[in-house]
């Protein structure tokens, strides 16, 4: 089901009536949704780098010149190339003791910090909490998603990757 620009805006802003959201979920997917969603995200960020792929809440992969794609926050903070793990360039707060875990969870409902910890990753620019990891201590920082941008654009969408090297 195709939503017009305002309809998509309402969907994303959670103003579309539930019945219509349900209808959108049940209907065939709109092949134009990807472009429409990018256009919506683009109009909402305060910078002009073209978004080539939405990358979760607050984050986007943007084109930064020929063959250069970086992970960028809404606020404008740029992390690193999209193929590298942006978390390594973030700020982290680790909840690895009972006291800090109890700031989020009640007594007896926060697990055991010897078994696993919470790592909160923040944007150095705006301090948005971008990801939380729940892993045993010592677990490598998880590289959640490495998109195949070239394959996606050229083979699936059938068009050149914006900003691809000539």
């Amino acid at each position, binding site marked *: 089901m195709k939503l017009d620009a305002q309809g998509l805006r309402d969907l994303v802003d959670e103003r579309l009536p539930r019945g219509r959201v349900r209808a959108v979920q049940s209907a065939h997917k709109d092949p134009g949704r990807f472009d429409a969603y990018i256009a919506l995200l683009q109009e909402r960020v305060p910078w002009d780098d073209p978004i080539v792929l939405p990358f979760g809440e607050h984050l986007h992969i943007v084109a930064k010149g020929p063959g250069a794609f970086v992970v960028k926050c809404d606020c404008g903070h740029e992390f690193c190339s999209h193929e590298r793990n942006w978390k*390594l360039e973030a700020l982290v707060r680790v909840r690895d003791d009972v006291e800090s875990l109890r700031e989020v969870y009640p007594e007896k409902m926060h697990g*055991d910090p010897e078994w696993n910890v*919470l790592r909160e990753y923040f944007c150095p620019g705006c301090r948005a909490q971008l*990801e*939380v990891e*729940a892993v045993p201590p010592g677990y490598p920082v998880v590289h959640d*998603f490495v998109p195949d941008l070239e*394959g996606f654009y050229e083979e699936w969408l059938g068009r050149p990757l914006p900003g691809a090297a000539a």
Partner: protein
Amino acid sequence: MAIVDSTRELEPRERAPIGWEGRTAQEMLEESEWLFAQSGAYWGLDGDLELKGADPIRYEKLFSRVRGGLVSARETALNISASPIVKEIGELCFALYTPEGDSVALSTGIIVHVHTMSDAIKHMVRSAYEDNPRIEPGDIFTNNDAMIGDVHNADVQTIVPIFFEGELVGWAGGVTHEIDIGAKTPGGVPVGPISRFEDGIDLPAKKIGSHDELWRDHVEAGKKGTRTPMYWTLDERTRLAGCHMVREAVERVILEEGVDVYKRFVREVIEDGRRAFKSRLREMTVPGRYRAPAFIELPFAKEAQLPSYARVDHALHAAVELRITRDAVLELDYDGTSAWGHHSGNCTPSSMQGAIWVMLTQTLICNDKVNDGAYLGLRANFPPGTLSNHSNPNASTGNAWYFLIPSFMGFIKSLSRSLQARGFVEEVLAPYGLTANAFQGGGITQYGTPGATTNFGLSCVGGGAKMLLDGLDYGAAMWNPEGDMGDMEMWELIEPFLYLGQRVKPNTAGPGRHRGGSGYECLRLAWKTPFFEMQNIGNGRMFMQSGLWGGYPAAPAYRHNIRDTDFFAVVARGEPYPVHEPDPADSALERVISGTRQFDLETTTLPEMMRQGDLYLSVLRGGAGLGDPLERPYESVMEDIDGDFLLARYAEPVYGVVPGDPDATEAARAAARDRRGDEAVPVREWMAAERERVLAGDFIEPVRRMYAESLRLSQRWAAEFREFWDLPEDFDYDIETPEVDIAKALIAQAGATA
């Protein structure tokens, strides 16, 4: 050669093959697989789908009739059952298969089993059951062996061949989940078994009836094998009746449409399903690599009754990697996963495929033709010796869900990253809740007779947060898309425990911009039972899987059980007694009720006795959150407090909300962001310190062993771990991993035999 005529008559005679065009079913399966390998299309149908193309309306009607027959069979047959799991919750499903065992269509219900039965049928076909014990019209087969094709023993399958004019045209299969499977410990998800020999009733792809009748010896053996013989017997009749209804539906279609049309249809519809799956991948996802490891503890060191080799605390690691290739193949890779173990939480490839299936049907292929076509668009790596593929003829899979459910949270999470990247925000879902606690046990019921239960209130834990909505509260289970907790009155009829209360449990949901669905809790009073052995099953120490994009994981839970209580004295004094425990830090249950108390994080235990007057708190988990909690609307947080979803004192530390004061909330949120800046450090700075800890192995033993198992079972995972932390090339931990040694010996033995 026999010398007596009547004996001579028993000697083997030539029998016509049961497959199509003079082939055996086994030959058909081999040809099907060869053609798929050659062409990449089901049965080599790599061109136009003729039936679909020539008369698409007829094609769709055929599918609807078959599908309708399956749904009708399920809805009708479940009324035969007396088990609340089957009758109330709907823990059953039916499916139709080709002669080679590929699923054509399925009913609603616990559809995780559509592919597991496919594995079971293929096993029978591949093992030449056609010759022995023979596959004939009116035969009845059963299976509950996860090594052959199942998740765990309690999912019992009945499979019936469908013949038309001497040819095998397909199979009807049905599954019910048994309330008790006669395992070492009571229930349908037994925690007690540490080997296959303790998993309970064992039905490895057996013929159990002919001429449409169950053989009496099988029926009698079943009654003796379980603690709940009535449920067992009626469940089996449920499955059989449903299969016969499916068979009739197929026969009707064949009589009206012609067998040649039916034969063409079943192949086209599977190829159609395969193509639809690929196109859905292209339509809704982004090619690339996704990772979402999950964890759960299995703490058995405290269980004195286990042998020493099983008395171990495990941190279980599911190294979940999802890849979507440019040619639209979905690859699921568990390389790096922990070793199998002497416990019941092991899986087989069939268990894993079942879970993939139920995930796909609720995500990518929920509104298309659902059949084994999707399976053909998948590639999986479940490394031998790991929890995802124990490869050990002796290993238990009695509670395979213990690993499956946490690990597949990573599947949903990864897929959601893809859906958001394509703009399909309405489909995004954070990890679901663990279907726990399992209120499960056995002993003497309120009727003075032996009995057992697995309370399927666990079918209604919290769903994961969505991008546009909070998670579903106490209404979801990943393995049965029709979440239903049943009626308390029904559970009280079969369990010697009264419900003192059943309410939403605050703070079970993972916080986030959208919070996860909330779990709930039940306080149960043991009633008129001299003894009933009760287990606890769930996570207490580990979160399992975090939320998405700043959302927190759902809360682990705890155990609060009290024995030898003064409950009846409190009642006799006319004093109020607690009916729930909204805040474990301020527990009326602890203040008011005296007795021998277990109030701790021991949330997976072997059975321990309870009797009249004892109290058991069953905490059902929530789902994970999505997005930064500081972005959750003030009004939503206030509604959470009002609705008992959130303890008020967590509004500010988690959400930056000052209850009753929106203006102060803005300031509190600004301060919370500042505090993040003050308290957080650059990741690389933190990594330098953490590396020293990794190098020193400064972890508790279960975590060290978890790392050692992954390092020793996966070269790739080991190389990445060492590279990430800049460790020596041969870095390992000085700890024994006996299950890895056994796995490697078994793999070497299998290699030598092959």
